[in-house]
């Protein structure tokens, strides 16, 4: 009997997953436990194993297709069995692919540059057309009333070819303006809704590139980042502290019997989780009209993975010991890197720490993870000099870059946090004893 295999739902908030790789071809024998396909959510990767024995009869989706959760992905059964009744793709979906591939093949010689107006108003018709043509609405320049993206704006993108846009965007041509208000007056909508004609731009015959579908996770990161920068008022403060004590302590710990490898980063996480308790506005979520202050510190740890940036959470970091913090950080980082992390661990943080110090970065501006109000960037250690008793001595100096939401709190309280943090790190032994 033919058995369909559905796309599992990984976590409550997950609506669809990308099929990243097929491990079985149509016609291939399958035994229980065989990996059928790999898939990923916006945050993690998974493998789907066969629970029945038989032959792979049909695959409804290709690699890199976005599949709604709980929808049939493939069918396993005996050869010759009917599978069409399991096909849950609607007719439109099948047609869409053709349209999309045709459109992207279109050559563009003369192009009209579109400056995206970033409008969030879209007519239902435009929305439907964009989805049908696989066009990213955010690229459309809204020319409808009140900055609404209307059908013609999507058709314009289609005409230009979807991928021509971003290149054109950077052409730097002068923008042509004309008022659309009553009597030709400039209307508010005219600002930021401008088109430019670029003609006769010579293109090299061969550009030499390859197109790769952007994975879900990349799309999510991109969305989160631009959302962060658009919706919050971010300010970054940078300061440094004398790392002599934590460097020395780390050496001692390394030489000790403690199995867990405690890194400088762990120590900073530990210190931040303690100091934050005195700075409620930074251990909080800024929710527009309310501030949510957390009783404990839930530390988001930025982890660089092959798939991209992931931020797992170490919950209740403020009541963990240094070793416990170190162990927890390690565990979630490994899970994130391996793509096996529980999606629910990828949210819920009240503050985030990101470390580029290991790459020798001396200072940077971390991007907030809204609705969190702060993120601390950890920089590399450099040798600095200071004057002690009239003599210049060198010491290891470590930089910290704090980005905070100026909408949620002012600069002075943020600076006070950084100041207290630096002091705590310089006197880490005392902190440990508290």
């Amino acid at each position: 009997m033919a058995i369909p295999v559905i796309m599992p739902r990984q976590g409550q908030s997950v609506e669809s997953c990308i099929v990243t790789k097929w491990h079985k071809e149509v016609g291939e024998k399958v035994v229980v436990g065989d990996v059928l396909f790999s898939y990923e959510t916006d945050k993690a990767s998974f493998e789907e194993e066969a629970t029945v024995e038989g032959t792979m009869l049909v695959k409804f989706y290709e690699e890199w297709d976005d599949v709604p959760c709980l929808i049939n992905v493939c069918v396993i059964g005996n050869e010759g069995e009917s599978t069409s009744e399991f096909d849950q793709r609607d007719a439109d979906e099948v047609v869409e692919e053709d349209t999309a591939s045709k459109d992207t093949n279109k050559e563009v010689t003369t192009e009209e540059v579109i400056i995206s107006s970033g409008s969030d108003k879209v007519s239902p018709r435009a929305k439907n057309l964009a989805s049908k043509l696989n066009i990213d609405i955010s690229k459309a320049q809204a020319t409808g009333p009140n900055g609404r993206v209307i059908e013609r704006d999507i058709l314009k993108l289609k005409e230009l070819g979807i991928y021509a846009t971003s290149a054109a965007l950077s052409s730097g041509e002068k923008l042509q303006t004309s008022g659309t208000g009553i009597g030709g007056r400039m209307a508010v909508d005219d600002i930021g809704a401008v088109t430019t004609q670029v003609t006769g731009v010579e293109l090299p015959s061969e550009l030499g590139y390859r197109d790769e579908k952007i994975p879900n996770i990349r799309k999510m990161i991109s969305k989160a980042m631009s959302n962060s920068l658009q919706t919050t008022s971010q300010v970054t403060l940078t300061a440094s502290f004398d790392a002599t004590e934590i460097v020395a302590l780390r050496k001692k710990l390394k030489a000790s019997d403690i199995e867990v490898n405690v890194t400088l980063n762990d120590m900073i996480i530990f210190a931040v989780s303690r100091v934050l308790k005195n700075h409620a506005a930074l251990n909080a979520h800024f929710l527009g009209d309310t501030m949510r202050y957390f009783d404990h510190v839930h530390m988001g740890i930025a982890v660089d993975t092959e798939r991209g940036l992931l931020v797992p959470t170490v919950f209740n970091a403020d009541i963990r010991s240094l070793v416990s913090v170190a162990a927890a950080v390690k565990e979630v980082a490994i899970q994130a890197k391996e793509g096996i992390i529980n999606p629910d661990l990828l949210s819920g943080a009240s503050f985030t720490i990101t470390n580029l110090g290991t790459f020798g970065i001396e200072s940077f501006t971390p991007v907030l993870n809204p609705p969190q109000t702060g993120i601390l960037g950890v920089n590399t250690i450099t040798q600095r000099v200071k004057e002690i008793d009239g003599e210049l001595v060198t010491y290891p100096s470590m930089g910290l870059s704090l980005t905070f939401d100026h909408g949620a709190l002012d600069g002075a309280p943020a600076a006070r946090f950084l100041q207290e943090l630096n002091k705590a790190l310089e006197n880490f032994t005392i902190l440990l004893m508290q």
Partner: protein
Amino acid sequence: MPKSQHLDPKILRAKSKITFTDIPVNQYDKTIEEEKGNFSNKDFMRIFRDMAIIREFETMLNSIKTTNEYNGVEYNHPGPAHLSIGQEASSVGQAYLLDKDDFIFGSHRSHGEILAKGLSAIEKLTDKELMEVMEEYFDGQILRIVEKMGKHDTVKELAMDFLLYGILAENFARKTGFQRGLGGSMHLFFLPFGSYPNNAIVGGSADISVGAALFKKVNSKKGIVIANIGDASLACGPVWEGIAFATMDQFKKLWEGDKQGGLKLIINFFNNQYGMGGQTNGETMGYKMLARFGAGVNPEQMHSERVDGYNPLAVIDAIKRKKKILDENNGPVLLDTLTYRVSGHSPSDASSYRTKEEVEAWQDNDSLIEYRLNLIKAGVAVSDDFDTMLASVKERMTKIMKMAIDYDISPRMDLVKEPDSISKYMFSNTKVEKMEDRPVDVLQPLKENEQVIRNSRKVRTATLNGKPVPKLKQFQYRDAIFEAIINRFYEDPTLIAYGEENRDWGGAFAVYRGLTEALPYHRLFNSPIAEAAIVGSAVGYAMSGGRVLVELMYCDFLGRAGDEVFNQMAKWQAMSAGKLKMPVVLRVSVGSKYGAQHSQDWTALAAHIPGLKCVFPATPYDAKGLMNTALTGTDPVIFFESQRLYDTPELFNEAGVPEEYYEIEIGEPDIKRVGSDVTILTIGATLYRAIEAAKELEEKHGLSSEIIDARTIVPFNYEKVLESVKKTGRIVIVGDACERGSHMKDMAQNISEMAFDDLDAPPVVVGAKNWITPAYELENSFFPQPSWIIDAIHEKILPLEGYVSTSNYTEREQLRLNKLGV
């Protein structure tokens, strides 16, 4: 304004005076003994029995309303009960001589009248006829129920139970009532017994009954018509209008042959002294005696008379004498039937407006006691006979009540299981070529009619050999309407037309030019300027079985006929559960040029009222086709015409307007111009402005417009519109009505909901301003212009490159105007 009647100034200016003759008041003074030659003992007793049945019926309802029980049977009746305890003698006396061919129309307080009329009809019909009536009514459904009540000794006994049950079940909103529960207490009737609708609108029956009398006269039908209305209704405009209409000189002076003479109509006031809590005699009216009113109406003084309605024999005597006047073609008659409402306006009436002594004084005069004593005195019967009869009536009533409240025997409509139970009665949707099959009364063969000949020489297209047809040679909108109408006049013998300036003048807009020569007076005549009576009488005419075409010269006069259009014409098909048809076409001319009270498009008012079909053709082809359909249907149609269009030739149908007969289905819009970028849905004359806008959009902005002419407003098939919007994604709805609350807004809402995912912008309405219509010279600032359509598209749908609006269609302006209510 017939030329045959010369208005001689010498005569009209001569010194003279008006004299009146005496109006009889309660002149009847015969004793039972003296009446024995006219009535047998059985007759005398039957009169008492009928009064007793009415008294018991009303007493039962009063008991149910006030104590939730009658004779030990419990029931809760939340509906209305306007009772007529005290008025029994007047209704029994009135009905006594009437048979099924005599029609009575009633009021909200008419249980007694239909019972009396029914009982009288039962007495006169043969057993065979009675069985036919009962078998045919709802396929014998009510009869089957009544038969279950046990064996009836006679068919008449069975028919009495049938009548009582049908009326009571209707009161209790049961599917087994005479109107399937859709009429109820205030809209009760039973046509086979000559009982026509009661009316919950005070005086509502007055002008309707005029139409019924008109039907009888025009179609030479047997019987008289009585409008039973209350004393308080004499203050209502439509009652005055009905009386004015009914007493038009032309019936006696201008109508010819057997049609000459007054209407066989009695406007009877059951003068029970109160209009709700207002005392008509002495407080809310000034006539002192209602009968006085007849004196001023016509030289015959409407044969007005007050009769003592507390004596059934006095009323019978009056009806006998008045019927004779009617039969001699000297009607109509005004009757002031004096009575007294012992019951309150309704059971909740505390009678705070009258004294206990007054009520008791009338109870001392109670006709059931007085008449009974008189009969005993005259040796007609002994007291026990009456007691036996009263006991049997009570027993019958209890039995009927038990049947009527039993949900298994008398269920209500189940709108869950049969959701279309009511909707199926809103329109009859039948096609009837002629309401009666007999030769038509016409004055000449159709081919010899001057206008028909004139039209035959006209060019039926807008251009001929590539050249525009000169105005005078064009077959125009008014000709198309004429052609459909005259054709139906030569097919349907019952069809009549009237309104203001219909005859001789040929209608204010010359649509009826030529009709006068073709039709005798009784088929085409001028009415008084009485819009309520024009429409109300048409309702009565159609109810009685005829087809009628009436007109309101301007749409603005619709308010003058408000009740007749909104409550009467629209509602009776459904309130009668399909027993009544309403083949009325009401032509309503939508004006322009004449300012605030002569230039309004009120299509939305008509469209809002359930039960009316509303059409608004904009081209000669559509006008003829839709008029043909309207005139063969059996539903009320408000036929809107635009005064801007009467001289418009056919610009859209390439073959022009066919000479032969054709119909256009009511409810189907028509694509007048095919396009792909924007849809413009037009109502009425704005079609032509949309065409202009479409040209400019095409030429200057490269936008291709699809123009859909709604043609009909109710019903309306949206499929074509949705199909178009699917293609274009954009729609503007245009009409000459003031935009707020217009039917365009209703259409926009429907389109928004049904085409939401296809829309590139919300549907936009371009209507007239929410102002008074200004003078003609300023109309371009009031009515939608082609440029407004483009402005609206530019501002709200699709900004046009380089376009500069002339009118303000921005959202800010919309907000501001709504805030100001203008």
